[in-house]
Structures are given as C-alpha cells and as structure tokens.
C-alpha cells in the first residue's frame, strides 16, 4: 500500500477537523472523496500533501512515517492541485518555468508543448498573458504545472467545479491518461458523478469522520 493512515486526527482549537481516520490507498488507485462542505475533505488532502501534519495517529507513505520524510522531496512525489489555483507571474510560460526553476533545471519548451497538446492548448499559449485566459484554460494550466515532472500521486481538490462540459471532458481525459497510462495514483475531492464513476474507489467524510467506505467498485 502507498498510504496507510492509522487513527489520524487533526485538531484545531480543540475541535477535531479529522477524527480517527483509518484509510489505506494503494499505488495506482483512483480514489474520490465526497462529503458536505467543512466536513474535513480538504484537511485530509492537506495532510496527504504534507501541508499539515497529524496531531494524533500515524500517516505512513510507502511504509514510512510521513514525519520522517523530507517534505520538499515528498511534495514533488505527491503533488496537490488546490481548489481555484492562482497562476504565477505574467504569462503561461512563467507557470511552467517554475517547476523547472525549483529543480534547478533548464526550461524545456518542447516537453511543455507536449503537455499543452494533451489539454488541447497550442504551443503559442506559452506566451499568453495569464489575464487573457478563460477559467477552464487557467485550470488546465494549473493542472499541467503539477504534472510536468510526473508525480507518483496527484491530489485534486474540486478541479472541475464550475467548468463547462467541454473543459471538464478535457480534464477527465487527462486524469484518465495519467491514471491508466502513467499509473499515477489519483486522489480527488469531487461531487461530480462522472468523476466518481471514473474512479475505482469512493470515500465519504462527514464531520471529520470516515463513513462507509464503498471500497473497490
């Protein structure tokens, strides 16, 4: 198993945002998470993304306690695309340049253009000013930013909420490609029935607690 959560709780101001979560996620899984707003879904994925740590319990990744892992290396392996992401800098290029920059690597436009093609954006989009992008285009670019260096796990927080069917379809194709062809583990918060159907697992979180995991389809 890739992730193993043992009695994980996250507590803020004496309130349990997550209470006693037990969950395993296997490599290659496509897991969807649903639940009412404020139920702890985002808290769970933030913990999986090493943005916050469990206050109680143990979160193991690849057999190791997450607290023992280097957070920077970990986040490069377990990439998290937040809800309503912001774009960096002035142009699309600035956004793709960032993952190269933090790895001290030279920007490779040819490689990036292949990714752009996967979400049906032309190579000329590299020089597009970010304020000229539509909501769907912004979301596609933010997603690509997370996968330029092929993470092992991709965490998605309501990435298609508010998008039209055309944009949704493009993103669904990308997610399926990543999961099926590149064997990237997908963990996705969503309310979209189509996405829930695409996944092989579904969990519900209510009031910080895991309720009736439906397991493998």
């Amino acid at each position, binding site marked *: 198993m890739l992730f193993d959560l043992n009695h994980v709780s996250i507590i*803020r101001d004496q309130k349990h*945002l997550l209470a006693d979560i037990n969950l395993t996620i296997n490599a290659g899984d496509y897991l969807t998470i649903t639940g009412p707003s404020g139920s702890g879904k985002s*808290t769970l994925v*933030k913990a999986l*993304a*090493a*943005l*916050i*740590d469990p206050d109680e319990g143990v979160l193991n990744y690849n057999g190791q306690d997450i*607290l023992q892992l280097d*957070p*920077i*290396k970990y*986040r*490069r392996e377990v*990439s*998290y*695309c*937040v809800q309503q*992401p*912001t774009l*960096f800098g002035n142009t699309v290029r600035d956004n793709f340049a*960032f*993952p190269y*920059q*933090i*790895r001290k690597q030279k920007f490779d436009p040819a490689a990036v253009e292949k990714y752009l093609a996967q979400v049906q954006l032309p190579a000329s989009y590299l020089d597009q000013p970010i304020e000229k992008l539509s909501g769907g285009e912004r979301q596609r670019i933010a997603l690509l*930013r*997370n996968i330029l260096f092929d993470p092992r796990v991709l965490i998605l927080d309501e990435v298609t909420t508010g998008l039209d069917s055309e944009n949704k379809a493009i993103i669904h194709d990308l997610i399926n490609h990543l999961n099926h062809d590149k064997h990237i583990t997908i963990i996705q918060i969503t309310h979209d029935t189509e996405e829930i159907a695409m996944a092989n697992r579904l969990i519900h979180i209510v009031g910080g607690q895991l309720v009736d995991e439906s397991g493998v389809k």
Partner: protein
Amino acid sequence: MGIAVNNQSLFYAGMLVVIALFIAWREKLGLDKDMIIAVIRAVIQLVIVGYVLRYIIHLDQLWITLIIAALIIFNASYNAMKRSALKSFKISLAAIAIGTIITLGGLILAGAIKLVPFQIIPITGMIASNAMIAVGLCFKTMEQAFKDQRQQVVEKLTLGADLKDATLPIIRLSIKTAMQPTIDGAKTVGIVSLPGMMSGLIFAGVDPVRAIKYQIMVTFMLLSTASIASFIAAYLGYREYFNARKQLKSMN
C-alpha cells in the same frame, strides 16, 4: 557664529507649542494631552542626552563609546521589533547590528569619521535609526504580503518548492519597500530637504561646500544601512512563517 539659543530664547520658542495646543484644543483633536507629554518627554530626554554626551565626549573612552553605540543598536532593534507582527528580537538585532557595524566600519576605514565619541555616537544614532525604520517596514510589508500572497505560497509548496523559492516575491517586495524611503530621500536631498546633518553644520557656521560633503557621506551610509538591514531582516524573517516541516505556521 550666529548661534544664539539660550534658555530665555528657548522659553519664548516654547510659545510655538502653545499655538499647536490651541489648534488641537479648538479643533477637538484630542491631542492636547499627547502633545504635552511629547513635549515634556522631548525636553527631558534631550537634556539628559546633552549632559550624558558632554560627559562621555569629555571622558573620551573607547569602551564607553562602544557601550553607548551598543545601547543605541539595542534600542533600535527593540523598537523595530515592537512595531512589527514578527516578534523576533533576534532577527531585528541581527539586521540592525550588522547593518550598523558594516556601515560604521566602512566609514571608519574610509577615513570619513574617526573612532572618537563625538563622531561615533551621533553617526551610530543616525545609522541605527535608519536601519530601525527599514527593518520595521520590511517586517510590516512581509506580514501583509504573507496574508495577500498566502495562496500562492501554498501552491508553490505543493509543487515541491523550497521555502525560499516559494517566498521569493515576498522577500523581494519586503526589501524593496524597506529601502524605498531611503532611496526617495536620496533623490530629493538638497532639492526638497536640507537634512539635519548638513543644516546643523551650516547652522554652526561651516562652509556649505564642506557641509554637503558630510551630507553625501550620510546619503551613502544610509543607503548601505537600509539595504544591509532589510536584506538580513527579510532573509531571516521569512523562515519565521514556516515550521520545521516546511509548512506555513498559519495553515489549518
């Protein structure tokens, strides 16, 4: 020499405060009490400093001079910290002390000033107070930027950025904002303002052409201090927003 301030003329000059008080009272600004306290404080502080400086300059002991310089730096650091949300005296002290010592050392090595109390103490005061303003502004800008750009910092972390890469725009903005008043001041010096150092020398009868040389030195030293102090404050300060696990402390 045309300097004719004596106790009697000071007393009459004090009438100017009455005008300020009258305006505050008439316009119901609620500043009268504050103003009276400020004036009394200013007079008492300056009288004490006058006597202390006279004594120290008369003593002419290097170690006493250095203690006074250290006191000025400590005070400046404490005040810069007090004004900021980032309650770190250590960072404030490191930024102001290093900024002041490097600038002071540069001036001494360049032969612009000598290691004597009547030069070191006032110059230390000017440098440290400029560093204090720069560090205060740097911290304030950083606090606001971490609020405004929080989401972007989080997203950069999720992409696997190290803290510096995630925070670089905030670091740059903080240093830039902290240095801006000193740069603006340098641009208008002599055109808009005739600053204290130069005015004081001219007042005391020094040839203006000589006085401006001191002012040029002051301009150089303030620029150097502001840049060193804000650079150190920003690069030490941004780490305070993260924990050892490279997570934003304000994350929940």
